[in-house]
């Protein structure tokens, strides 16, 4: 099945699933309430957005300089920095580190880039044990499914489903209370942190000025992952750079507000090296892998370069009516929702993934929600333009050519309207059936009746 067929198939299933629709709407409604409260607490959310957008512009449009500064500072304090052009290279670098350290068990905190490079599967095939420590990621890992949402991986599940899951996979599910289920995960994870050979993290921001990587989380699992194992490995996209340490004063509360409706996420931690002389704990070795994986191609598209400003807050997913109705898994991509629809064609191929840009009403809610003012919905339109310019769909292009001829010639336009009016009774005969040319519409909707006198007829009769 092609990607687009798969998307349409899954979308058909999910949009009919009223229970799913209800679960997601409940989750997102509670998010909206706190998000609006937190935005209102800002003295000026809009000024903050503009400054955040300009800061990211500065970061991305001087990316080489900032990366050089970041890396030189990291290396000066003992961090080993690796550069990976693609997924395969990144996986190989990580595997090699694990082999060098003779590691067997890895504890992971949340890293969407690790999903992007399909890391877990590759490591498990090589015989390593990988445990996701973030509760939501842990849950979907047990279910053998990808995260549903980049920030809320298990948003689609009810407590009952999680109880059954824990009972089945862990033999430990006292009740369906979220509190008790969370404590189960806490218990399971405890010794895994202490005994893991390697701690693996992602990174939310990389500070060029001071050579730091900042990690944002609520649970504390990333902090433990970065504190206890002897070796720490961090994988991060090259676009995560911010110029200055003080920029975090703006970005951390904005990420929390847009992403979860929190004033600040519980733990925001900046790492500037492995354990330093005089420090009593922390990893002896820290490896940071900088991932390109076609981000430089997106960078080269100056019109859409601002998509690299993304801070992965998930706000665009939360407001997107398509996301709310088809759900995160339907996209079939690491990054779903509007930002996923924008960047996936660049990261994985335009013709294969243009359908995500087509599956949108271009309502613009995403662009409005984006804390760094990425022009998301216009990028979807640009993807459509680029896709049809490089590989036009013959019949669609022809249809528009014919439409143009008809629209430009009043006599043809008038004739087209007459034909439409005359064939109305015929249409109601075939309505909804295979013969109905308007089936896509009439399967679920009635067609509007076409009056005999059009506006132009009325106008002409008036003169």
């Amino acid at each position, binding site marked *: 099945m092609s990607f687009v067929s798969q998307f*349409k198939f899954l*979308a*058909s299933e999910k*949009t*009919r699933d009223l229970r799913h*629709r209800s679960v997601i*709407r409940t989750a997102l*409604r509670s998010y909206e309430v706190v998000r609006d409260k937190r935005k209102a607490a800002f003295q000026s959310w809009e000024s903050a957005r503009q400054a955040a957008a300009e800061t990211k512009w500065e970061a991305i449009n001087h990316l080489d300089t900032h990366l050089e500064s970041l890396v030189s500072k990291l290396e000066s304090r003992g961090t080993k920095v690796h550069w990976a052009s693609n997924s395969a290279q990144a996986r190989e670098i990580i595997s090699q580190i694990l082999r060098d350290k003779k590691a067997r068990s890895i504890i992971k905190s949340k890293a969407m880039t690790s999903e992007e490079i399909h890391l877990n599967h590759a490591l498990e095939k090589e015989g390593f044990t990988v445990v996701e420590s973030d509760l939501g990621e842990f849950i979907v890992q047990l279910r053998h499914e990808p995260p549903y949402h980049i920030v809320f991986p298990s948003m689609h599940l009810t407590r009952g489903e999680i109880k059954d899951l824990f009972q089945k996979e862990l033999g430990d599910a006292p009740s369906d209370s979220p509190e008790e289920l969370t404590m189960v995960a806490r218990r399971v994870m405890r010794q895994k942190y202490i005994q893991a050979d390697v701690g693996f993290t992602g990174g939310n921001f990389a500070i060029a000025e001071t050579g730091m990587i900042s990690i944002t989380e609520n649970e504390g699992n990333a902090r433990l992952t970065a504190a206890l194992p002897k070796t720490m490995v961090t994988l991060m996209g090259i676009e995560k750079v911010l110029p200055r340490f003080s920029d975090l004063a703006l970005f951390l509360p904005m990420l929390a507000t847009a992403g979860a409706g929190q004033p600040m996420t519980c733990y925001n931690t900046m790492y500037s090296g492995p354990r330093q002389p005089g420090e009593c704990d922390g990893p002896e070795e820290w490896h940071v892998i900088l991932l390109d994986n076609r981000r430089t191609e997106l960078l080269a598209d100056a019109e859409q370069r601002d998509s690299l400003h993304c801070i992965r807050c998930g706000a665009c997913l939360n407001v997107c*009516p*398509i996301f*709310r*109705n*088809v759900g995160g898994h339907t996209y079939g991509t690491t990054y779903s929702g509007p930002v996923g629809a924008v960047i996936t064609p660049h990261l994985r191929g335009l013709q294969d993934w243009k359908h995500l840009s*087509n*599956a*949108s*009403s*271009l*309502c*613009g*809610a995403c*662009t*409005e929600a984006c804390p760094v003012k990425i022009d998301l919905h216009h990028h979807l*339109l640009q*993807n*459509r*333009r680029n*896709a*049809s*310019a490089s590989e036009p769909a013959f019949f*669609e*292009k022809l249809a*528009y*050519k014919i*439409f*143009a001829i008809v*629209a*430009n010639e*009043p006599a043809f*336009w008038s004739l087209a*309207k007459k034909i*439409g009016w005359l064939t109305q009774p015929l249409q109601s005969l075939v309505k909804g059936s295979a013969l109905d040319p308007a089936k*896509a*519409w009439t*399967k*679920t*909707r*009635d*067609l*509007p*009746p*076409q009056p005999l*006198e*059009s*506006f*132009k*007829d*009325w*106008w*002409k009769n008036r003169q």
Partner: protein
Amino acid sequence: MTVTLFIPCFIDALFPRAGISMVEILERLGHKVVCPNEIACCGQPPFNSGYWDEARTIAAPALEKLKDAEAVVIGSGSCGAMIKKFYPELFAKTPQAELAKQVASRTWEFSDFLVSKLGVTDLGAKFPHKVTFHDGCHGLRELGIKSAPRALLGKVSGLEFVEMKEESCCGFGGTFSAKFPMISTAMGEVKCAAATETGADFIVSNDSSCLMHIQGLLSRQGSKLKTIHLAEVLNQK
């Protein structure tokens, strides 16, 4: 002033009463209205699908026809956005780039024209029903139109206005409604439910294309809720 009224293709063919209402309202306000017969469409369907050459084939003659218009008024948020926001982009780096910017600067969506340009909110209309308003996304986000329709409805005698609890896209999205009908329908169902929850008798909008999709679902559901264009409400006595 002389108002060039641009009647979008679907209003011409399917919802002429909305266009007629606009003409009558503008004339009652003392303006001369012209409706160029040669312009049938703004070019948005091919534009939204990414076929910009074909879109230019339709939009270029439209642009020429609007060249000397004193004020261009369109009875649709999405077509309004096409001309005001997207024509400059569509014609960038072409000989008509400057003309596109010029015409865009003299173009308004209907409700925006009444309130922002003419400074009129009270049209002496009467519509004793409970209504709610659906903001078409293009009008709302591309053109920033939210208060104008509400200001106008607020002056309609006997009208009881109630806001929907959540604001969301109706799911029409032009060709999206046919290319991804299952998603379009789901989005429309959410909108219909929100509208029904208000207890209103009518859903009003400044975009007939949205109403066409919403009405299509309501009729199929057998709902008593009706849709009506803003201009028609404002023209009721």
